[in-house]
């Protein structure tokens, strides 16, 4: 019964986090159109169960590396929506002080080693962090998130091997949303992803990435194995992005996804699914769920207000942070 309560609390926490991510993501098109967010973003809508299910299994001092589609991972690992919005708006209060933006969101104090603009590039960093924990005998775990597209990137494949050979506490989480931009993963693979991961010597498993509980259970197993010195694992989470590759795809049709495929996946919304399951199981009422939704909404409002009220970095601070230690005229200015 106490256990059941803990499970319910955990599920509710996952629900709220997923909702926070969803709402954070849903805000972006309007903010982009209004010129408040610069450029474009890669929305995580539809994939929330993966980030949240995995990060729910992590401790504060565990670390994650993320991708170009990174907001979800970052928020799931505990990032503040306000500082995240602020970063997307290029504000000084943003996690990266406005230097990084959407594709580089990071908070090292929360173990978030950063979104990354290069597919697959975060994987070896997770291995390096995990190797460091292992050397020190620290019971910490590193998680590398990446998409299905990354599974064909050399540096990621090299990293799978290293992790298996070194038996470091790392969990590779492949978010298979079926497409890399317009390329269907089935067109660029001749054999299953899980088999490839297993062939390197990793404990590999496929899981329903639209089911937060299923992701969480698999992640808990993998994380426990890693923490206990049992080595590295690989989870392939089947999921889907409900929106285009990035916000610039709005209103265009590149014709790579059949409408009925999109519709079918949309019907499997992981947030609705978990919310409904909790209701069906009597874990919360419709009113409690509505309250949770409203609290998330309030959190988003607060976050937006914080970000909007924040200042931009001073123009002459552009050269800060390039080096821990600077020397005369280092970094070189473009005009001197």
């Amino acid at each position, binding site marked *: 019964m106490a256990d059941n309560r803990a499970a319910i609390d955990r599920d509710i926490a996952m629900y709220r986090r997923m909702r926070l991510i969803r709402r954070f993501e849903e805000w972006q098109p309007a903010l982009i159109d209004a010129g408040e967010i610069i450029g474009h973003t890669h929305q995580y809508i539809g994939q929330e169960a993966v980030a949240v299910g995995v990060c729910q299994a992590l401790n504060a001092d565990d670390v994650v590396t993320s991708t170009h589609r990174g907001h979800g991972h970052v928020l799931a690992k505990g990032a503040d929506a306000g500082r995240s919005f602020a970063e997307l708006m290029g504000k000084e209060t943003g996690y990266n002080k*406005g*230097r990084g933006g959407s594709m*580089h969101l990071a908070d090292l104090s929360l173990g978030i080693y950063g979104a990354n*603009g290069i597919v697959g590039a975060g994987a070896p960093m997770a291995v390096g962090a995990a190797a460091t924990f292992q050397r020190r005998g620290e019971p910490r775990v590193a998680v590398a998130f990446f998409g299905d597209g990354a599974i064909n990137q050399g540096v990621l494949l090299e990293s799978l091997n290293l992790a298996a050979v070194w038996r470091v506490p790392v969990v590779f989480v492949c978010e298979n949303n079926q497409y890399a931009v317009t390329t269907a993963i089935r067109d660029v693979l001749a054999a299953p992803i899980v088999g490839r991961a297993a062939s390197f010597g990793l404990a590999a498993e496929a899981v329903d990435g639209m089911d937060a509980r299923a992701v969480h259970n698999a992640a808990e197993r993998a994380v426990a194995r890693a923490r206990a010195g049992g080595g590295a694992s690989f989870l392939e989470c089947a999921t889907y992005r409900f929106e285009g590759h990035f916000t610039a795809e709005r209103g265009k049709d590149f014709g790579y996804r059949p409408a009925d495929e999109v519709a079918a996946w949309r019907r499997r919304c992981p947030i609705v699914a978990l919310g409904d399951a909790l209701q069906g199981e009597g874990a919360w009422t419709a009113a409690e769920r509505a309250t949770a939704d409203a609290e998330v909404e309030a959190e988003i409002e607060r976050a937006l207000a914080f970000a909007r009220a924040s200042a931009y970095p001073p123009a002459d601070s552009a050269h800060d942070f390039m080096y821990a230690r600077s020397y005369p005229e280092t970094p070189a200015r473009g*005009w001197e």
Partner: protein
Amino acid sequence: MAARTLTLLQAMNEAFRQEMARDPEIVYVGEDVRAPARGESAGLIDAFGPARVIDMPISEAAMAGVATGAAMAGARPIVAFQVTSLLFPAFDQLVNQAAKLPHMLGGQTHLPVTYIVLGSGARDGRAGQHSDAPHAHLLHAGIKCVMPTTPHDAKGLTIAAIREDDPVAVFVPALAAGRQGPVPEDAYALPLGRGAVRRPGRDVSVIAVGHHVHWVLAAAAELAKTGIELEVWEPLSLLPLDREGLLASVGRTGRAIIVDDGNRTCGFAGELSALLAERCFGRLKAPIKRLTRSDIPIPYSRGIEQTAVPDAGKLKAAVEQVMQWRG
């Protein structure tokens, strides 16, 4: 020869179509090339089919190597990199393989490969990893590079690159990709190694690389009102370089400012400056100035992004300095 108004990327698309229709050994390889977000390869799949228009997995190193091997077997691959920094995962295959093989093999093979490098340069918060202007890396390795900034030049230089029997990289500055201009219908190649005086002027030669040429011309028009006449010279072909054209311009004005979007240290602006310091020394009336990006990743936020790249304000300050210089 009728000319229509096209965007720079449409002009390149036409170059691909015309050349691929001409030579069945030309194949077009890249990520998402069947449904390109920016349109440069639009329609190729319908015109030439999946055997010649090939969507790649996200494997840039292998992509570059495949092109090299195909070229050794007699193909003429066009390889599209959707982001400039995707040259980096492929770097060994570019600078250490394709660039070197013809020489290391004693001339046994030519490598007629064209690298289309899209989205060059900083703009709009693309931030640290999607704003690179890495042409100096390829130049340092001896890879031929062109950088067109008008639709007309884009078509002609793309066709020239495709027809060249060596690897040639075509850098497409993001901020020029959407520019419109007249483009002749027929296929035509512009010669490599030929720059252009975009505006004649008496006082200072401004060598403007890539999309900078457009705002530099605007700045020159403004400065002309104050009596300072900038000569604006665009290299177009970075390697081979039109040294004659460059030296002639700076020889005339005696002053040079180089505006380049790449990083500063060991960049293309430095190369041009060194060339001028060697070859034009006796005619220089003032120090050569470089206006480049700063040696930092391009910052996301607009204000600090602007700090990091050349602009009209920095150009005017540099013009003032070289005009006022007294030894």
